[in-house]
C-alpha cells in the first residue's frame, strides 16, 4: 500500500482513467488537475478551468474517455479530449442549488447529478440538437442528494440523501435505451419510480454502492451505521451500528464484503452473510507503523493523571496512513466482484492505494469472503 501526498489541500474528489495511468483530482478549488503517472512520480498534465465554484464531483468514463464534473456553481461540464486539450461542453442542469455528486452510467450514455435542490438530474445526449438534455427525479426526495451509484443494468440508480433515506430510483430514458429486463428490485421501471426506500437508520446517507450483480445495495450513514439491503419480493435490510466515527464512503469489493472509510481516517472491512442476513465487522484495514514503546517515567504518569485522569498516554498523532478523514474510495482493478486494489483520497491531500492481497496476509484474522 502506498501513499502519495499530492498537496496540502483536501482532495474533494477524484477519478481514474481506464488504464489507471491518469488521475483527475480537484484540490478543493474551482479547477480539476489531471496527473499522469511517470515511473514512480505523478506529473501534472492538464488543468481544467471552467467552473466558477468549487468542484464537488468528477467522474471519468473508461470507454468513451470523457470526464464529467459538477460544482457548486450549479453547472456540469462534459470534457472530451481533442488532441492534447480537454474541451468542455456545458450541461444545463436546471437546478438552483449546488450540484453535489455525479456519476456516469455503466454504458456511458447517461450521467446523473445529485444536488442541493432536492432532485437528481439524469442527463443524456440528444443527437438531433447536439446538446445534453436533462430530466429531473423529484419525488419523494426531501433534502440534498449526497451520493449516487448506478446499477449494472444502466437503468436503476441508488441515491443517498440528507433526508436520512437511501432510495433506488429508475432512471430509464426511453430515448436512449430499450426497456430493461426485470431485476431483483422490481419489474416495472418507469422514469422516476421508487423501487426501494430504506427504513430504520437515521442520519444523512454519505455513501451508497450497488454490489457487482446489482442485487444488493449498501449505504453508510452519519449515525455511524452501515446497512445492506438485498432486493427480492420484500427487500431485506440489515444494518450494523459501528463503534467508530461516521463513515463517508463505501464500496463492495466482492459480492459479500464491503470496504468503508470515513472520519476515522482508516478503511474498515465489513462482511455480509446473506444466509443469516447479518452484517459484521471484519477488521481495520490499516497497517500502522510500529511505534517504539517508550517507557514512562513516574513524573509522566503523574502528569497524565493530572491532565487526563488516566494513566496511559495515547499519542496525539494519528497512526493511520491518512492523516485526515477519507472522503472517497474507488476501485482500481478487479471490479466490484473481485477487487484487487482500491484507492482512497482524503482531506489530508493524500491518495493511498491499497492492495487487497497484502492486506489479507497482513491482518491475520481478515477473511474476505
Amino acid at each position, binding site marked *: 500500500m502506498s501513499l502519495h501526498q499530492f498537496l496540502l489541500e483536501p482532495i474533494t474528489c477524484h477519478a481514474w482513467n481506464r488504464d489507471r495511468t491518469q488521475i483527475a483530482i480537484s484540490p478543493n478549488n474551482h479547477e480539476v488537475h489531471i496527473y499522469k503517472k511517470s515511473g514512480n512520480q505523478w506529473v501534472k498534465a492538464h488543468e481544467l478551468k471552467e467552473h466558477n465554484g468549487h468542484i464537488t464531483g468528477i467522474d471519468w468514463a473508461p470507454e468513451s474517455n470523457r470526464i464529467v464534473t459538477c460544482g457548486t456553481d450549479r453547472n456540469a461540464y462534459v470534457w472530451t479530449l481533442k488532441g492534447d486539450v480537454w474541451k468542455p461542453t456545458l450541461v444545463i442542469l436546471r437546478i438552483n442549488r449546488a450540484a453535489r455528486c455525479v456519476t456516469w452510467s455503466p454504458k456511458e450514455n447517461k450521467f446523473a447529478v445529485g444536488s442541493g435542490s432536492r432532485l437528481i438530474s439524469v442527463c443524456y445526449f440528444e443527437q438531433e440538437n447536439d446538446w445534453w438534455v436533462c430530466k429531473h427525479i423529484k419525488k419523494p426526495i426531501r433534502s440534498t442528494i449526497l451520493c449516487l451509484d448506478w446499477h449494472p443494468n444502466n437503468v436503476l440508480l441508488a441515491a443517498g440523501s440528507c433526508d436520512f433515506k437511501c432510495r433506488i430510483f429508475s432512471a430509464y430514458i426511453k430515448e436512449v435505451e430499450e426497456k430493461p429486463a426485470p431485476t431483483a428490485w422490481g419489474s416495472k421501471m418507469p422514469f422516476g419510480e421508487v423501487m426501494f426506500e430504506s427504513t430504520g437508520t*437515521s442520519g444523512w446517507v454519505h455513501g451508497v454502492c450497488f454490489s457487482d450483480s446489482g442485487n444488493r445495495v449498501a449505504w453508510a450513514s452519519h*449515525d*455511524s451505521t452501515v446497512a445492506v439491503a438485498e432486493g427480492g419480493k420484500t427487500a431485506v435490510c440489515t444494518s450494523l*451500528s*459501528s*463503534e*467508530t466515527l461516521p463513515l463517508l464512503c463505501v464500496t463492495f469489493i466482492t459480492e459479500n464484503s464491503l470496504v468503508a472509510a470515513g472520519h476515522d481516517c482508516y478503511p474498515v472491512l465489513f462482511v455480509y452473510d446473506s444466509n443469516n442476513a447479518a452484517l459484521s465487522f471484519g477488521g481495520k484495514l490499516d497497517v500502522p507503523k510500529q511505534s517504539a514503546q517508550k517507557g514512562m517515567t513516574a513524573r509522566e504518569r503523574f502528569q497524565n493523571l493530572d491532565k487526563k485522569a488516566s494513566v496511559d498516554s495515547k499519542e496525539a498523532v494519528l497512526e493511520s496512513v491518512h492523516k485526515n478523514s477519507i472522503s472517497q474510495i474507488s476501485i482500481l482493478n478487479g471490479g466490484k466482484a473481485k477487487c484487487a486494489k482500491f484507492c482512497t483520497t482524503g482531506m489530508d491531500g493524500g491518495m493511498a492505494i491499497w492492495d487487497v492481497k497484502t492486506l489479507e496476509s497482513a491482518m491475520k484474522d481478515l477473511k474476505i469472503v
Partner: protein
Amino acid sequence: MSKNTVSDRFRKVDVDEYDENKFVDEEEGGENQLGPDEGNLMGALQAVLKNPPINTKNQNVKDRAEGLVLKVLSSFKSTDIEKGVQSLDKNGVDLLMKYIYKGFERPSENSSAVLLQWHEKALSAGGVGSIVRVLTARKTV
C-alpha cells in the same frame, strides 16, 4: 351579504383545550414508581431502560422517565457499574448513552460525577459510535 367587520380571532381559539373533561393520553414508560430495591439493581436497570418514551411528545413523561433512570444509575455502587453496562445489549448501550447526555443537560448536586463514571464504562462498551448516535438521533429520549 353582510361582511363581518368585527374581528374574527375567536375562530382561531382551540375550544377543546379549555374543556374540563378533556382526555389526556395514557402515560407510558417508567414502571417502578417506588424507586429501586437495593437487592435487584440489575433488574431495575433493565426495567427502567425498557419502553423509553421516545415517541411521545409529552415532556412530563420524558422528565419522569429521566428522573427514574437517574435514580437507578445513582444507586449503583461504583464497582458494579461495569457489570451493569455489560448486561446491556448494543441498543441498550445506545439508550443508556442518550440518558447520560440528557442527565448532563441538567446537573444536580452529585449527578455529574456519577454520570461521568457511567459514561466512561458505556464509552468503552459502545465506542465513539454510540455518542454519534446520541447526537444524530431524530427522536430524543
